[in-house]
C-alpha cells in the first residue's frame, strides 16, 4: 500500500472527469433505484443501454482476464510483469459493470438474491454465478500478488480464471442465444460474438491503458488477430441481415460496423492508443446493435401498445449510466494504480 498518496494526486483532470461521471451518473443511478424511472424502456423493449453497459464492461474485463491468464500460462513475461495492473483493470471494469447492472435491476440486493435462489436452467443464473466466481478469483490473485505469495497456486489460478472467464463470456452470449421467438436472438453465434468481443475489447483496453511498448506489442497482436475474427463475424451478420426479411434489421447498413475494425487492423501500429479506443467503441456499437435489434419487433399484444416495430435511441439518463459504469471502473483502476502499484516497477521494456 502506497502511503505517499496525497490530496494533490486527486487534483488532476482525469480525477475531475471521473468525479463528474460518478456524481452525475450516480445521481441517475440512485434515482432509478429508489425514486422513479427515467430509462427509455417499455414492456417490450426492456434491455437498453444500461444493460449494454454491463455487457460491454463485463466482457472487456473478461478480455483482460483472458489475456492475463494466457500470459501466466504461457509464461509470457511481457504480460506477466504487468500482472497487478491487469488484475486491477479487470476488477475495476467488472465492478463498473456490476454498478451499471445494479441500476438496471433496481437494487444491489437483487444481485445477491440470484445466488440464493438458483435456477440452473437459466443462462442468466450461470452468468451471474460465473462472474461472481471470476470476481473472487481476481481478488484472490490480487491479494496474493500484493502479499508477494507466488508459487504452486499461480498456475491453477490462471487456468481457473481462463476457464471461468471464457465460460462467462460464452454464457453472456447464451443469455441472448437461447431466446426463442425473437428475430435476432438465437443460436451459438452470439456466444462466439461475445467471446471474441471480450478478447477484442480486453486487448484494446490494455493497449489503451497500459502504453508500455512490450505489452502494447503483445496486446496489440492479440487485438489485431481478434479484431480480424470479429470483423469476420460482423460481416457474417451483415450478410445474414441483408438477406433477412425481418422488419427492424439494419440490412446492408450494418456494414459500417466493420469500419472501426478495418481501421484498427490497418493502422494500429501508427497510433495504437487512438485505434484501440476506436476498436473499443466499435465493439460497443456491435454489442449495442445485437442487444437492441433483438427486441425491436414487438411480440403478440405488445404490438398494439408500442407498434409492430419500435425504434430506440438512448436517452440522457441511460447515456449517463454508461458514463457511471465507465467512471466507476476508471476510479477503481486509478485508485488501484495510486495505492497498490507504488512499489512495482512496470517500466517500458
Amino acid at each position, binding site marked *: 500500500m502506497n502511503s505517499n498518496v496525497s490530496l494533490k494526486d486527486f487534483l488532476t483532470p482525469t480525477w475531475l472527469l471521473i468525479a463528474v461521471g460518478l456524481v452525475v451518473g450516480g445521481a441517475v443511478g440512485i434515482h432509478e433505484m429508489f425514486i*422513479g*424511472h427515467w*430509462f427509455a*424502456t*417499455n*414492456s*417490450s423493449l*426492456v*434491455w437498453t443501454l444500461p444493460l449494454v453497459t454491463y455487457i460491454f464492461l463485463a466482457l472487456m474485463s473478461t478480455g483482460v482476464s483472458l489475456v492475463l491468464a494466457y500470459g501466466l500460462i504461457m509464461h509470457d513475461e511481457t504480460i506477466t510483469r504487468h500482472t497487478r495492473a491487469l488484475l486491477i483493470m479487470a476488477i475495476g471494469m467488472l465492478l463498473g459493470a456490476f454498478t451499471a447492472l445494479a441500476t438496471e*435491476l*433496481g*437494487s444491489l440486493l*437483487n*444481485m445477491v*438474491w*440470484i445466488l*440464493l*435462489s*438458483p*435456477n440452473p*436452467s*437459466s*443462462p*442468466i*443464473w450461470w452468468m*451471474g454465478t460465473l462472474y461472481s466466481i471470476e470476481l473472487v478469483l481476481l481478488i484472490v490473485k490480487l491479494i496474493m500478488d500484493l502479499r508477494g505469495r507466488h508459487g504452486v497456486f499461480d498456475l491453477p489460478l490462471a487456468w481457473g480464471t481462463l476457464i471461468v472467464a471464457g465460460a462467462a463470456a460464452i454464457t453472456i452470449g447464451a*443469455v*441472448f442465444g*437461447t*431466446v*426463442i*421467438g*425473437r428475430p435476432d*436472438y438465437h443460436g451459438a453465434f452470439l456466444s462466439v460474438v461475445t467471446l471474441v468481443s471480450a478478447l477484442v475489447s480486453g486487448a484494446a483496453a490494455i493497449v489503451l491503458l497500459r502504453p508500455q511498448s512490450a505489452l502494447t506489442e503483445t496486446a496489440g497482436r492479440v487485438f489485431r488477430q481478434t479484431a480480424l475474427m470479429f470483423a469476420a463475424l460482423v460481416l457474417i451478420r451483415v450478410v445474414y441481415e441483408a438477406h433477412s426479411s425481418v422488419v427492424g434489421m439494419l440490412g446492408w447498413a450494418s456494414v459500417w460496423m466493420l469500419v472501426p475494425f478495418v481501421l484498427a487492423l490497418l493502422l494500429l501500429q501508427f497510433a495504437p492508443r487512438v485505434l484501440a479506443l476506436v476498436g473499443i467503441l466499435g465493439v460497443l456499437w456491435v454489442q449495442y446493435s445485437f442487444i437492441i435489434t*433483438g*427486441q425491436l419487433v*414487438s*411480440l*403478440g*399484444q*405488445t*404490438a*398494439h*401498445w408500442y407498434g409492430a416495430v419500435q425504434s430506440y435511441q438512448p436517452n440522457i439518463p441511460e447515456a449517463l449510466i454508461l458514463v457511471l459504469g465507465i467512471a466507476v471502473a476508471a476510479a477503481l483502476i486509478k485508485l488501484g494504480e495510486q495505492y497498490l502499484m507504488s512499489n512495482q516497477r512496470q517500466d517500458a521494456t
Partner: protein
Amino acid sequence: MGYGMVIDQQLCVGCAACTIACKIENNTPVGFNWCDKITRTSGKFPAVRYEYISTMCNHCENAPCVAGCPTQAMYKDASTGLTLHDPKKCIGCKACIVNCPYGVISFNWERPHQSWTENNRLAEGCFSPREMVEESGGEGSPHGNPERGTTYPVVRARGTVEKCTFCDHRLAKGLAPACVDACPSGARQFGDIDDPSSEVSRLIAKHGGKGLREELGTRPRVIYIRDYKPQRRFEPARPAGENQGA
C-alpha cells in the same frame, strides 16, 4: 392435471369484455393488460379478412419464461400446471419478458397505481385520489380487488414483472377465470386440458385447434378452435314487389 383454455374464434365477437374483466379482477395498472389481443388484417378489398385473437399468458407446458428465470420466481405449479410468478423472488432482470415469445409478461417500471397516491383535489369539496382510495377501502386504487390478494399481491411491487395467473385465486374457490365468466358469447371454455373427458378436451377433440406459435415447442395451454367464418344471420332481402300491398 393441467388447466387450459379453449377460445372459440367462431364465437368470439371481439368485444374485449375479457380484457376489462381481467383488468378489474386483477387490478392491473395503467399501461398494460394481462389479457389483451392480437389483430390481423389480410386480403384485398372486398375479400378482406380481420382476425381478433384474444391473448394472455399461455401457461406453456414447456415455458421459456420458467427456464430463463434465474431465481425460480417464475415457476410451474405442479398441482395445476399453471405458470405462476413469485414476486418475492423476482429480481427484475426481465429475462422472462425477453424469453416469452408471446409478449404477455409486463414490467412495473414505476410503482403501480402511483397516480392514486396524489393529494391534489380537482375542485374544492372533491375527493383527492388518495382520499378516494381511503374512502373505498381499496388497496392501491379504489378498484383494488381484495380477493386478488389471496394468492398474489393486489398491488405488485415496483421493479417486478407480472402476468396472467388464470385467476388462480378464483380457481381455488371453484370459480372460472374472470375473462371466462365475462365472455358474453361463451367463446371461452376453461378446464383440465389433461382430462380427455373435460369440456375443453372435448372441444379440442371435436374441432382440432392450435395454440399460438406452436412451432417453437412451448406447448401452450391456450388453444384456439375454429376460424371465424361469416354466417348468414338474417333472411335474404326479398325481391322487389314481393309482399307489397299485404
